[in-house]
Every structure is written in structure tokens, then in C-alpha cells.
């Protein structure tokens, strides 16, 4: 029998090793799997490469992972925010590597990894600093930059509900990067607000089919207070 559910967040992330590439879902705090990140901080893995849209907000979730100096490199689109002080400090000290990727290219590169696409030509970034040194091509009169997939060892995502097969549904704009990151990692770990019986999710409305999800752990909303903490 397939049962991807796990009892604790600690168990779910136990085998993330030093040097791993870890995708973390979320756009700001919406969809950020804070309890999985907290467990990762407690677990102690170092020298991580993190893929996220941002570089941490305030003093929660990803920001705390950065503060704990567990991150060697971050691949993101928008690190600089009013409350990204932990990233800012590390960056100015030269203690973290930054790969800055336009948000749509970030999303498409993650999708390409999940979809087995070797590389793709995107118009975004052409002629800018962020395409310097990259291969370009003119196709039908339009200019494109060649971009490559971003794969990960682990993806940590947050969803609304999941079942023992790993099927997931999300909530509103907290969906954001979760579904594509789930496809791009060797091992995808989802924290969900509730685990539902197999068949309870409408097959027409499943957003992430279980094939992309390896572990599901239940973190009820408000369980720690951090989930919906310093929201926006």
C-alpha cells in the first residue's frame, strides 16, 4: 500500500544532506512551508543551495535559515525587500552567493526540469545584464536567451490538503511555485493543513498529482503560530 504520509516534519526532512539543493515554495510568506524550514534549521544541514522567489522575510522561515548560515547560494528573483535584513547582511559580507533570475525565467526553468526539457529560448532578459554571457538566438524576428533547467534534490512545499498518494490542492495565491517545484526535485516534501482520505480530492481539481510528491506531513493551520505569522 502506498502511504506517503509521515508523522513529523523532522522525520520528513531528516535525510537532507549538507550541500543539497533545496527548492522552497512560497511567494513572500504565502505558500512558504515554514514548519519544514524550521525543522531543517533544527536538523542542521549546511552549505545548502536554496531556490525560492525571495531571500527571506523578517525573522521567520527562510530568513532564519539564512541567519543560521546554512545557505551557500540562493537562486531567486527578488532578494531585496524591506525586511530581508538577514540576506542583506550576508550578501554585503560576501558570505552568500546570489544567482538572480527574472521571475518568469525562474518559473520556466523549474518547469523545464520537471518536464525533461533540455533548455529553452526565452525572450525575457534579452539585452540585459542578466543575460550577459548567455547564448542568444533570433527566431522569427524576435530575440531570445537560452536558459537551462533548475533541478533540486529536495522541494519543500506547502499545500492546503493532501492524501496518502501525495495528491495536493493549494489555497489561493499560496499556490505560486509549489506545483512546479514539486515536479523538479528528486524528493518532494509537502506540508499540508490536513490529510484527507484517498478519493476525497476531486480528480478534476487536483493541482499536483501524487506522482510528484514523495512525502506528506500534516501541519494544521496555526499549529505553531508561525504559519500565518508576519504575513505580507
Amino acid at each position, binding site marked *: 500500500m502506498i502511504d506517503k504520509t509521515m508523522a513529523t516534519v523532522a522525520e520528513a526532512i531528516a535525510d537532507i544532506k549538507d550541500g543539497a539543493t533545496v527548492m522552497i515554495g512560497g*511567494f*513572500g*510568506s*504565502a*505558500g512558504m512551508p515554514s514548519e519544514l524550514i524550521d525543522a531543517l534549521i533544527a536538523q542542521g544541514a549546511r552549505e545548502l543551495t536554496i531556490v525560492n*522567489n525571495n531571500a527571506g522575510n523578517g525573522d521567520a522561515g527562510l530568513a532564519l535559515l539564512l541567519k543560521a548560515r546554512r545557505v551557500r547560494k540562493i537562486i531567486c*528573483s*527578488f*532578494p*531585496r*525587500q524591506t525586511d530581508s535584513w538577514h*540576506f*542583506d547582511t550576508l*550578501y*554585503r559580507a560576501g558570505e552568500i552567493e*546570489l544567482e*538572480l*533570475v*527574472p*521571475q*518568469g*525565467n*525562474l*518559473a*520556466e526553468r*523549474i*518547469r523545464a526540469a520537471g518536464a525533461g526539457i533540455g533548455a529553452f529560448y*526565452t*525572450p*525575457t*532578459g*534579452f*539585452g*540585459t*545584464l*542578466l543575460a550577459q554571457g548567455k547564448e542568444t538566438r533570433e527566431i522569427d524576428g524576435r*530575440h531570445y536567451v537560452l536558459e537551462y533547467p533548475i533541478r533540486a534534490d529536495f522541494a519543500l512545499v506547502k499545500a492546503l490538503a493532501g492524501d496518502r498518494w501525495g495528491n495536493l490542492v*493549494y*489555497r*489561493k*495565491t*499560496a*499556490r*505560486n*511555485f*509549489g*506545483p*512546479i517545484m514539486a515536479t523538479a526535485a528528486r524528493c518532494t516534501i509537502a506540508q499540508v493543513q490536513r490529510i484527507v482520505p484517498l478519493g476525497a480530492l476531486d480528480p478534476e481539481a487536483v*493541482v499536483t498529482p501524487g506522482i510528484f510528491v514523495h512525502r506528506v506531513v500534516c501541519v494544521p493551520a496555526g499549529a505553531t503560530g508561525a504559519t*500565518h505569522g508576519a*504575513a*505580507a
Partner: protein
Amino acid sequence: MNRYTRDQMAARVARDIRDGAYVNLGIGLPTLVANHLPKDREIILHTENGLLGMGPAPAPGAEDPDLINAGKQPVTELPGASFFHHADSFAMMRGGHLDCCVLGAFQVSVGGDLANWHTGAPEAIPAVGGAMDLALGAKSVYVMMEHLTKGGESKIVTQCTYPVTALHCVSRIYTDLAVLEVTSQGLRAVDIVDGLSLPELARLSGVPING
């Protein structure tokens, strides 16, 4: 010198958005446009973090941390809304499905190049977000900005000196002094603030502007 107020600029942009249009309003000044959309038009707002059919800010106390816009501010969803993931959302933009995108800018060149993501200052932490995708992600790209910097320099330039966001992407420029259209023959003034002449506008702008 007369100047359009920020609300006048926003209202002017709103007037140019047709009924039924799909529109993305960038962070900052462009968000004001939402307050001025004509009541007799149905205009559908997109936010690149995965929502089409975005509604206004919620009532105080009704904020939902899972329902935010690209500026990470709480918003609402209208009847007819749909949610989607980031790859689908940016495919929607990159694929040219939005009718209009309204963006702020540091500089716009006479050829329609846009600079709005990076001051180029060496000590600045770079952050691009969806700026480059937005600049390419609509049939029409409208820029809203002050015409001059605080130091009195024109933000409309022959060539951008700030790092560009995208080349040849801007359709129209809405400033506190004028509305300019980017054409293959250069800039054309659509509106000028009362009391300002076309030659004076061109002089202030430091670039040729056709009437």
C-alpha cells in the same frame, strides 16, 4: 509649471484601457490606476503571483495571507477569478495574452527601451522580480513616471544609462507633463499639460518629440 497630479496621471492611463482588457498593474505608481478604472468598463486584473480577476483591497480585518498581489499586499478575488501556478502565470504574460501592463520606470528611451529594475549603483543589492517579464508580457506596455528626476534631469533619454529591463517594449509614457507615444518615427506627444508648449516639452525632455 503645471503638472498632472498622480491621480490625474492614473486617471489618464485608465481612460486608455479598453472595456474587457486583461491588465497587469505594476508595483508603485501604477497601482493607483485601479482606483480610476471607468465604472462602465469591465477590466480584469492579473497579478503575476497567480490570480486573474483580482479585486480591491479587503476591508480591514478581512485580510487573507494566502490572497496577496505581487507587492505582497492583501487583495480580494472577484466572481470569475481563477488561480494558477507561477509557470502558468508567466506563460500567460510571456505568451502575449495580457492586453496591457502599466509599469513604473527610472528611464525610457526614445526607442522604447525600459529601465526600471536596477539603479546600477555598485553597492545596491540587485532584485528583478517579474520586471523583465512584465516589460515583455503584454500587447501594450504603458509606463507611468515623473517626467524629470528630483535633480531636474529628463527620465526620457536617447539611450538608457541605467541597466535596461527590456528593449523596444514601451508603447506609451504617461508623465506629470505629457502623454507620449513611442512610434517608429520617435516620440509623439498625445497630451501635454496645460501651459506647456511642444518645443518646451522637447527641451525639458532633451529628446525630439513630434506633435
